[in-house]
C-alpha cells in the first residue's frame, strides 16, 4: 500500500513537472479567492466604518427633532429653525417617573458663530446644551471640566472647546483658563474635549459647547427663547430603546396636546435605525459581491476539472504503467485526488496573497477601507482546497477506472 507521503510526493512531482499548466489550472480559483478576500474585506471594512461612525454619535441614542416626517405634508416647521421643541419638553422627558427607560436627556441648540482669541479668529458650530450631553455623546474631557448644572442655571459665560477650535484659537497652548470672544461676548474656557475624530456627518472636534441657557440668551436670542433644535435621549440599555421611544413619544404628544400620533410635530429617530439602514446597505453590497466571487470560484472549479481531465488523458500511459507496476485503482484515485486538492490549495494560497495585495491597494484608490479577516482567509483557503477536491473527483475516478492494457497501449 502506498503511503500518504508517497502519494503526496508523486502528486507534487506531477504538479511541478507541469508548472505552467498547473498555474493555468488554478488561475480561476486564484482569482475567485482573491475576489472573495477583497469583497468580504470591503464589506466588512465599510460596515465597520458605518458602525464606528454611528456609535461615535453616542450609545443607545435617540434623537428628537422638531417637525414630522410621517405627515403627508412632509417635514413641518423648518428642521432646527422656529422649533416646536422646548426646554420644557426636555425637562418632561427627564422625569424618572414618566419615562423610566430614559436615563439621560440633553436639549441642544446649535448655531455657527464667529469667534476670536488673541489675534486668532475662527468659525465653528456652537452647541448649547446641558451636562448629560457629555455622556450621551460618549465624549471625554481631556483638560479642565465640562459645563455644570450650576452653569446652566445661572447662564454662566463658560465654554468647552473641541480640539480643532483650541488649535485654531490657542495654537500650542492649553486653552483652559483663557478667554474666547464669541459673537461679542466673552466666555472663559473651562475645558477641552478629547478628540473624537470626524463622523460621517460632522467634525466632532470642530465645535464649542456652552450652557444652553447662555446660548439662548447671548447667541441665538430672538423670540424663540426657550426652543431647542434637538433633544438627545439616552435609553437605559440597548434593550430598552423601543420602550424609551414609546415613553418619549407619549410624553411629547401629551405635552404638545396632539391626539393623533400621525400629526406629531416631532420625530424620534433611534440610533439603531440609522445603524441598521446603513449596515443593510453594506450587507446587500457584500452579498452581491460575494455572489460574484462564488460564481468565479465555481468557474474556477470547472476549470480545474477540465484541465485535470486533459491531464488524465495526457497521462494515460503513466497511469497504465503505474497500474502495471502494482498501483491499485484506489492508489491512482488517491494520487489524482491529492493532486486536485493540492492544486486547489495552491490556488487558494496564491489567491489569498493576491487578495491581501489588492486589499492594500484598493483603499488607496477608492478610499474604501478593506478589513482583512483571518477567518475569511482561512475559510477561503479551505474552500479552494474543497473546490479542487470536489472537481477532482470525476477526473480522478476516470483515471482510476482506466484498464491497464488500454492505458499502456495509449502512446
Amino acid at each position, binding site marked *: 500500500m*502506498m503511503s500518504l507521503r508517497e502519494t503526496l510526493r508523486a502528486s507534487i512531482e*506531477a504538479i511541478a513537472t507541469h508548472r505552467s499548466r498547473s498555474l493555468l489550472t488554478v488561475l480561476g480559483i486564484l482569482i475567485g479567492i482573491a475576489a472573495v478576500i477583497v469583497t468580504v474585506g470591503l464589506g466588512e471594512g465599510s460596515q465597520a466604518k458605518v458602525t464606528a461612525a454611528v456609535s461615535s454619535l453616542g450609545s443607545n441614542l435617540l434623537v428628537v427633532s422638531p417637525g414630522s416626517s410621517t405627515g403627508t405634508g412632509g417635514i413641518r416647521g423648518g428642521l432646527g429653525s422656529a422649533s416646536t421643541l422646548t426646554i420644557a419638553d426636555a425637562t418632561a422627558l427627564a422625569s424618572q417617573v414618566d419615562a423610566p427607560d430614559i436615563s439621560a436627556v440633553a436639549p441642544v441648540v446649535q448655531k455657527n458663530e464667529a469667534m476670536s482669541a488673541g489675534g486668532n479668529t475662527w468659525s465653528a458650530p456652537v452647541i448649547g446644551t446641558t451636562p448629560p450631553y457629555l455622556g450621551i455623546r460618549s465624549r471625554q474631557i481631556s483638560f479642565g471640566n465640562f459645563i455644570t448644572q450650576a452653569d446652566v442655571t445661572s447662564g454662566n459665560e463658560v465654554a468647552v472647546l473641541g480640539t480643532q477650535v483650541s488649535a485654531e484659537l490657542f495654537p500650542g497652548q492649553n486653552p483652559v483658563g483663557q478667554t474666547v470672544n464669541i459673537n461679542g461676548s466673552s466666555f472663559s474656557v473651562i475645558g477641552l474635549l478629547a478628540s473624537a475624530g470626524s463622523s460621517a456627518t460632522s467634525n466632532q472636534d470642530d465645535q464649542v459647547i456652552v450652557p444652553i441657557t447662555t446660548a439662548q440668551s447671548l447667541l441665538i436670542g430672538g423670540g424663540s427663547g426657550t426652543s431647542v433644535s434637538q433633544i438627545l435621549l439616552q435609553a437605559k440599555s440597548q434593550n430598552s430603546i423601543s420602550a424609551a421611544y414609546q415613553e418619549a413619544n407619549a410624553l411629547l404628544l401629551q405635552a404638545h396636546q396632539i391626539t393623533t400620533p400621525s400629526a406629531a410635530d416631532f420625530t424620534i429617530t433611534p440610533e439603531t435605525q440609522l445603524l441598521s439602514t446603513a449596515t443593510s446597505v453594506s450587507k446587500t453590497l457584500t452579498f452581491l459581491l460575494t455572489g460574484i466571487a462564488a460564481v468565479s470560484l465555481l468557474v474556477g472549479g470547472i476549470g480545474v476539472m477540465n484541465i485535470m481531465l486533459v491531464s488524465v488523458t495526457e497521462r494515460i500511459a503513466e497511469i497504465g504503467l503505474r497500474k*502495471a*507496476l502494482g498501483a*491499485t*485503482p*484506489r*492508489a491512482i484515485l488517491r494520487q489524482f485526488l491529492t493532486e486536485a486538492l493540492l492544486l486547489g490549495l495552491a490556488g487558494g494560497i496564491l489567491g489569498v496573497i493576491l487578495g491581501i495585495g489588492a486589499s492594500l491597494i484598493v483603499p488607496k484608490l477608492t478610499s474604501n477601507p478593506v478589513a482583512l479577516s483571518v477567518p475569511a482567509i482561512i475559510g477561503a483557503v479551505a474552500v479552494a482546497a474543497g473546490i479542487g477536491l470536489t472537481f477532482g473527483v470525476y477526473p480522478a475516478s476516470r483515471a482510476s477506472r482506466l484498464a491497464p492494457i488500454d492505458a499502456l497501449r495509449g502512446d
Partner: protein
Amino acid sequence: MRRDLAVRSSYGSSNTSPVIEIRGLRKTYGEGEASVEAIRGIDLVVNEGEFLSVMAPSGSGKSTLMHIIGCLDTPTSGSYRLAGRDVSHLDEAELASIRNQYIGFVFQQFHLLRHLSALSNVELPLVYAGLTPNERRIRATEALRRVGLGDRMNHRPTQLSGGQQQRVAIARALVTDPTVILADEPTGNLDSASSEEVLGWFGEFHRAGRTVVLITHEPDVAKVASRVVRMRDGVIVGDGPPELIFVGTGTTFAAANPAVPVIKGLDAAGGKLEPK
C-alpha cells in the same frame, strides 16, 4: 506428497514446478458480430527457471497472451494459475498486487516516466510494494548497478540512449525480485547492438535461475531462448527448443538458421557485460 507441495508453493525450490499453468485459455474482445477471438484455446505450462519465447506474426495474439500472463487482463474462459494460484477471476486491486509481487514487465516502448530519474523509475514498483524509502533506494541502486547503469542513476530518461532506457526498464523489472520476467518485444525499438545487449541480459537472468518469457515476432530474437512457442491465429502451432523449432519448420526458418552463432555472440556479449 512432496510433488503436491512443490506444485502449490509459489517459490518451490524444485526446478520443475510450474510457474505458469494455462488450460483451455480463450480471449474474446468485444461482443456479438464485432467480436474478435484473439486467443482460441491455449494450453501452456512454464516451469520455474525456463527461458521461453513466444513467437508469432503480427496480430496472432501475442500481446493478448502476454497481458493475461502478466495479469493485466483476465481470460474470457479457461484457467490460469500463476505460481500455483488461480488468478483468472481476481478483481482489479488483487491483480494489481499480484503484478507487483510476481511479474517484472519489460515493454517495447520502455514506459519510463519522463519526469523521474532512472533511480526513481526503478523505485516505482517498490513504492507500490510499500517499502520504506531507504529500502527502496538500496534495492533500486543495486538493480541499476547490475545492469551497468550505476553512474546514470540520476539521469532522466531523455538523457539516456534507447538501449540505456531499456536497461533502466530491465532494472525496474528486476528490482522486485519477481517470479516471472515478462518482456513484450523488448528489442522492437532498439538498434542491433542494443538489442544484443538487452537479450544478453535476459540470458544472464536465465542462467541466474529466473523464469523469463520473451514475446517477439522476430525469429532472431526468439531463438535466444531455451524454448520457443510458436503461435498463429490465437493457437499454439509449435513448442520446443529453438534448434528443433527452426529446423523442424523447414523452409520458413531456414534462412534464419544460423541460430548457433547468434547465441554464441550473445553469450560473448553477456560475458562482457557481466557485473563484477
